[in-house]
C-alpha cells in the first residue's frame, strides 16, 4: 500500500484541481470578455447607420432580403388606403369627412410563420374578391 505517497497525492490533487479550474475560469472570462468587446464595437456602428437611415428616410421597413427600401412614395399612397380602411371599419360612406394627418409604424414582432399565415389569408380574400 502506498500510504507514504498519500500526502503527495492529496497535495497534487488539490493543486491540479485548483490549476485546472482557475485556467478554465480565466478562459471562460476571456471568452465572455472578447465577445462583449466585439459586441461593443458592433453596436455604435449599427446605431450610427440606423440614425443616418432614419434621418434620410422617415419611414423604413425591411424587405424580404433584409435591406431597407425607401417607402416615401408608398407612404403617400398609404394615406388614402388608411382613410378608406377607417371609413369601412366605421361603416361610413365615402362622403363622410375624415382626414388622416399622420400615422406611425409599430414594430411587428410576430413570428415569421404568423406573418406568412396572415399574408396567405389576405391573398385568399383578395382573390375571392374580398
Amino acid at each position, binding site marked *: 500500500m502506498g500510504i507514504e505517497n498519500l500526502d503527495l*497525492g492529496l497535495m497534487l490533487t488539490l493543486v491540479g484541481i485548483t490549476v485546472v479550474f482557475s485556467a478554465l475560469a480565466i478562459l471562460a472570462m476571456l471568452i465572455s470578455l*472578447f*465577445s462583449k468587446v466585439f459586441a461593443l464595437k458592433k453596436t455604435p456602428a449599427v446605431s450610427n447607420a440606423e440614425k443616418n437611415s432614419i434621418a434620410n428616410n422617415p419611414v423604413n421597413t425591411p424587405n424580404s432580403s433584409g435591406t431597407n427600401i425607401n417607402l416615401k412614395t408608398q407612404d403617400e399612397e398609404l394615406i388614402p388606403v388608411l382613410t378608406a380602411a377607417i371609413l369601412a371599419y366605421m361603416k361610413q360612406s365615402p362622403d363622410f369627412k375624415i382626414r388622416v394627418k399622420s400615422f406611425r409604424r409599430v414594430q411587428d414582432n410576430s413570428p415569421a410563420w404568423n406573418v406568412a399565415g396572415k399574408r396567405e389569408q389576405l391573398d385568399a380574400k383578395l382573390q375571392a374578391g374580398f
Partner: protein
Amino acid sequence: MFSEFTNTILGLIQASGFAQGDWKQYLMLFIACVLLYLAIAKKYEPLLLLPISFGMLLANIPIANMSSYDEGGLIYYLYQGVKMGIYPPLIFMGIGAMTDFGPLIANPKSLLLGAAAQLGIFTTFIGAILLGYTPAKAGAIGIIGGADGPTAIYVTTRLAPELLGPIAIAAYSYMALVPIIQPPIMKLLTTKKERSVVMEQLRPVSKVEKVVFPIMVTLVVSLFLPDATPLIGMLMLGNLMRESGVVERISKTAENELINIITIFLGVSVGATATADRFLNPETLGIILLGLFAFSLGTAGGYCLVKSCIGLQAAR
C-alpha cells in the same frame, strides 16, 4: 516414404500456430473476436474498435510476431508514432479541424463541464497511489478518466512510458465502449424529465470571434501550462485552419484523410500492444479496472456538475 510424409506433416503441425499457442493467447484471440463482433454487429464506435480489436487479434496469433513490441515488423514501426507522442497531436489537429467551437464561445460556462472529469481522474489517482502505484504511474492511470485517448497516450509517454500499452488500450477501449459504459450511469444519475430537456438556442457567434478563439486559447493555455502546448497547439491550429476559411484544402485534409490514416495506424498499433503475456497479468488487469473506474466516475462528475448548475439556476 510413408514415415517421411507423416514426419513432415507432424513437423508442419508442430510448427503451426495451433501447436505453438498457449491458452492465454487463445483467450486473447477470443476477446479480440468479441470486440470485433461489438464493432461490426453492434456498431460500437467501429472507427476505433475495429482497428484496435484487429490489432489485438494480429498480436496474439502465435509465432506470427505481429505485436507492437516485435522489433522490425510493420506494427512495431507504426507503434513508434504512439511511443514518441507523434500521433496524439496530429489526431488533435484533425479534431480541431472538425470542431465548431461556436456553442462553447456562446456559452463559455460550459468549459467548466469538461473540468468535471477531474472527479474521475483524481479519485483514481489517489486510489492507485493507495494500491501501491508510484505517483507518476497513478497519474497516467488516472488520466484515463479524462475519456480522451490521445491525451491518455501523450501523458503516459511523459509520466510512465512502461505503462503505455495497457493505458492506451484501456483508454481507447473505453472510448469505443461508451455506448455500453455511459448509458447506465446516465440513467442512474438523471431523471426521464431531465433527459428530455430541450436545450435553448444559443446566441449566434461572429466569424471574428471564431478566428480569435483558437489564437487566444493557445496563448492562454500554453502560457499557463507549457507542457500542454503540443496538444492544445495542434488542436487550435486545426480549428484556426477551419475557421479562417483561407486554407480550405489543408483543413479538409486534416479533418478527413490525415485523421483517418492516423486513426488506422494508432488503432492497430495500440491494439497490438495487448499481447497475452503483457495483458493477462495482475498489474495490467488492475490498470484496466482502475481505468474503468476513472472513466465511469469522470462521466458521473459531468452529470453531477450539470445537475448542481441546474439546481443553482432554479434556486435563483
